[in-house]
């Protein structure tokens, strides 16, 4: 048996396939999660995010491919909670057990002391309610307790599935800053979400999947550059003449509704000046910016399992600025 020692803190997912009967949840999925940054794991509901995380944590066996933590399968790690902290479902606790008992039982299984339990309860702000049964906790408090549990082993790698769910605005801000701090300390932070807007604020890197396939593996910066395109909506009764004119100046033009033209490559003042010079009447001239959310929706559109009356095509919100 060859023992490969991978770089510490790196999660490698290679050719991962997972089938549940006839349903293919993961389809040859591959990516790498690096330390020192927050990696956002994005995809619509049912894209396979949770399944991927379960496979990484050794809970589900993949049909094909493998997931490695620092070069090893999760199951090979002795006392893994000291290396990988995870939060899959904040509700997954016995409701009658107290927060303290919940954390302490996991701490004991990995040889972690009581002092550390107190530390993480304090860090996450649930110390005052730690003796109450978790069944009485709000979802926000459960999320905080779940984060406390994930941080229990002072792990190099943190894996969280939808940690922002149920948090109030203050909690959302807290968790965002916490993830950034943990990444700045050199840890690997791998966080799933179905909200692009949330990840745009939290993550440095994005892994986007749909229907179990990799759609994008990119830095947030590059994603914004590539996708937060803007265009100008122009309406004119002489749309054909205007199209010819603008095209001759290097613009890319697509028809957009009744007498409308979606123009990229030229800004609004330039279009206005060119039209005025040729005496072509212009009835509307609207600069538009695509949101990151829209770019994400466009990307995942084809892979959404149950589209709920989402208008198709490149609908671009007027006057909204990319986050």
């Amino acid at each position, binding site marked *: 048996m060859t023992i490969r020692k991978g770089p510490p803190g790196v999660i490698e997912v290679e050719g991962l396939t997972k089938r549940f009967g006839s349903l293919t949840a993961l389809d040859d999925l591959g990516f790498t999660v690096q330390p020192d940054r927050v990696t956002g794991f994005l995809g619509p509901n049912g894209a396979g995010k949770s399944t991927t995380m379960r496979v990484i944590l*050794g809970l589900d066996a993949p049909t094909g491919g493998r997931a490695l933590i620092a070069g*090893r399968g*999760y199951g090979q*790690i002795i006392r893994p*909670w000291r290396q990988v902290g995870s939060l899959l479902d904040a509700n*997954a606790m016995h409701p009658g057990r107290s927060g303290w008992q919940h954390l302490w039982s996991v701490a004991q299984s990995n040889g972690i002391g009581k002092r550390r339990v107190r530390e993480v309860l304090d860090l996450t702000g649930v110390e005052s309610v730690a003796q109450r049964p978790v069944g009485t906790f709000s979802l926000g408090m459960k999320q905080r307790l779940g984060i406390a549990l994930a941080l229990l082993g002072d792990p190099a790698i943190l894996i969280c599935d939808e940690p922002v769910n149920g948090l109030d605005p203050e909690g959302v801000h807290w968790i965002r800053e916490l993830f950034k701090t943990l990444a700045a300390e050199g840890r690997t932070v791998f966080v799933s979400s179905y909200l692009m807007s949330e990840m745009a604020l939290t993550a440095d890197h994005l892994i986007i999947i749909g229907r179990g396939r990799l759609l994008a593996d990119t830095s947030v910066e590059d994603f914004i550059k590539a996708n937060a395109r803007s265009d100008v909506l122009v309406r004119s009764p002489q749309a054909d003449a205007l199209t010819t004119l603008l095209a001759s100046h290097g613009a890319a033009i697509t028809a957009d509704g009744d007498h409308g033209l979606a123009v990229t490559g030229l800004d609004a003042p330039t279009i206005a000046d060119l039209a005025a010079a040729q005496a072509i009447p212009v009835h509307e001239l609207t600069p538009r910016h695509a949101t990151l959310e829209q770019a994400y929706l466009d990307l995942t559109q084809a892979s959404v399992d149950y589209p709920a009356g989402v208008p198709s095509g490149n609908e671009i919100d007027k006057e909204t600025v990319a986050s």
Partner: protein
Amino acid sequence: MAVLDSAPTERTPPITTRVADVIASEWTKIRSVRSTYWLLVVAAVTAIGGSALVAVSERSSSQPPIGDPVAWVFIAWLEYPVLAVGILGVLSLTSEYASGQIRTTFAAVPQRLTVLAAKASVIGIIALVFGEVLALASFPLSQAILSGRHGATSLSHPGVPGELFAAGLSLSAIAMLGLALGAIIRHTAGAVAALPALIYLPLVVLTLPYPWNDTIGKFTLLMAAYQLVSEHSHTGLLSPLLSLAVVVAWPAAGLLTAGVLIQRRDA
């Protein structure tokens, strides 16, 4: 092997330490839920109450008891707490499956057999200790009721301490069978329904024509437990060692099946 250590500050602790830690964790879990205490209360009330009731009816009976009088009382003793103690075993796994806690458990300890063994140790020891306490409590009570009548005996009577110990051991076996069922079925309702089915349904072989009823019936869990508990005063019974083997074989077979399934299935 040192190459495997990616956390340089941490030496891999010996396996005994790791297993002891998982047992400690399971001990914390079982004593931090209310259902544990309820089930033990139910087991205590039914065991002590049950054996007292049998003793009362035995006292008013004019006929001498068949076979071993101590076992006679213990038959009732065993029948009643069996369900509560078995459910204690069932719940220690199905409650984790129901809440999703099992994923945290297996993520913290991916060696699932260690988890199963730790749970079996904790459940088994609780049931054993509790069973012995119940035996020691219900024995003097039933004997006080029977005092001066046929069937009365004392703790110092030869064989009695062994019978008391066997009673606790049988409860421990049933608790571990419950745990195995919980691991195999994973749903509380299903496992709780399967438990009495597994304990009582095999007793239908007792309605088979002789000698089949006798021959096969001896190997059912409850009958083996009775034989283990009774003083072997009459013939046709399994030897103590063989009845012990049968009592142990039931949970052992269950736990082996559970061990195979728990590793193979997704959590």
